[in-house]
């Protein structure tokens, strides 16, 4: 009867586990302290002058895509085109004529975070000021 508390090839297994652990965690400690800084989107002068967006900055940063999704359905399917925010201010629900009117600097505003988070929304294939700029 072999002693079943014995690990056969203990040295090899422990060595293997250590190597495995190092390899798996390699990306974490290799990149430690080298995290790309969070991007700082640049506001246009128009956006700066307005001071506030239609909702709070935090909300817009986190939820603008859901907001646009709701807007699209409301505008297209229900014909409701006016958004009245919590402060009672109303806005035309239009990506092209409202959002991109203030945020007209795609490269410095939209793209910075989208590139950082590696998302590729294709809003601009249809909604942008000058289609001639597109290849």
């Amino acid at each position, binding site marked *: 009867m072999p002693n079943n508390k014995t690990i056969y090839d203990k040295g090899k297994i422990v060595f293997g586990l250590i190597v495995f652990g190092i390899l798996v965690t390699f990306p974490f400690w290799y990149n430690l302290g080298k995290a790309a800084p969070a991007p700082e989107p640049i506001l246009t002068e128009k956006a700066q002058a307005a001071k506030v967006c239609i909702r709070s900055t935090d909300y817009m940063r986190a939820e603008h895509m859901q907001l646009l999704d709701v807007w699209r359905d409301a505008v297209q399917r229900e*014909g409701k085109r006016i958004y009245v925010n919590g402060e009672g201010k109303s806005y035309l629900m239009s990506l092209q004529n409202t959002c991109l009117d203030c945020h007209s600097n795609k490269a410095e505003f939209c793209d910075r975070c989208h590139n950082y988070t590696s998302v590729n929304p294709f809003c601009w294939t249809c909604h942008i000021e000058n289609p001639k700029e597109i290849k």
Partner: protein
Amino acid sequence: MERSRRRFLKLAGLGTLGLGAKPVLGIVSGGAAPQPQIVQGENALKAKQWAMVIDTRRFRTEEDFQPIIDACHKIHNVPRLENKRHEIKWIWTEPFENAFPNKENRFLNTRVKDLPFLVLCNHCEDPPCCRACPTKATFKRESDGIVLMDFHRCIGCRFCMAACPFGARSFNFRNPRPFIRDYNAEFPTRMKGVVEKCNFCAERLAVGKMPACVEASDGAIAFGDLEDPESEVRKLLRENFTIRRKQQLGTEPCIYYIV
């Protein structure tokens, strides 16, 4: 033991009641900020079923239609592709025998025979395109009967084009952007791989304007609510004999022609 379990359950029960307290307290204290609302514009034109009456007696030649077609295509960023197979059209002209097949007599009068007829999406009361669409990208809007498209949702299957008996839909075989002559920054363009068609100027009706073609027609095209007996279109329909395209198919087109 017995007693302590009983007590524990009681306390746990009271505890769960507490979970429900926060929303109640929130309502009582009235601390909730006003929620954002989505509403219709004040100037928006409303109808149960928009319809159009085209007085063809007011037109003579192809040139008479050009300003109307240009007005629509400019406002909606409709590209101009020379290749007929790639052509995108929202509003265009057809000779009588193509616009009104099986209304064609063997001997037509000369005026009708040579007259181009302005054709566009008929915004049918029972649109076959909407039934064909697998993604509900095209739909009949409940509020005003316009047959609309959500280009975001269109997958480019072109079932709607096969289903439409009027050829009112065009497919973007190419990226339309390089072919837009005068860009209107207020209206989006489309992309390669989606179907498009006339939208009865839903974006203009929403701000209280008449459709672009109606405005450009100098009174030859009337626009109004088909369900309202007092509307301009109903008045014209009462006073004039009108025809519709392929009425026998039962789609109930909403574009009427005074011949």
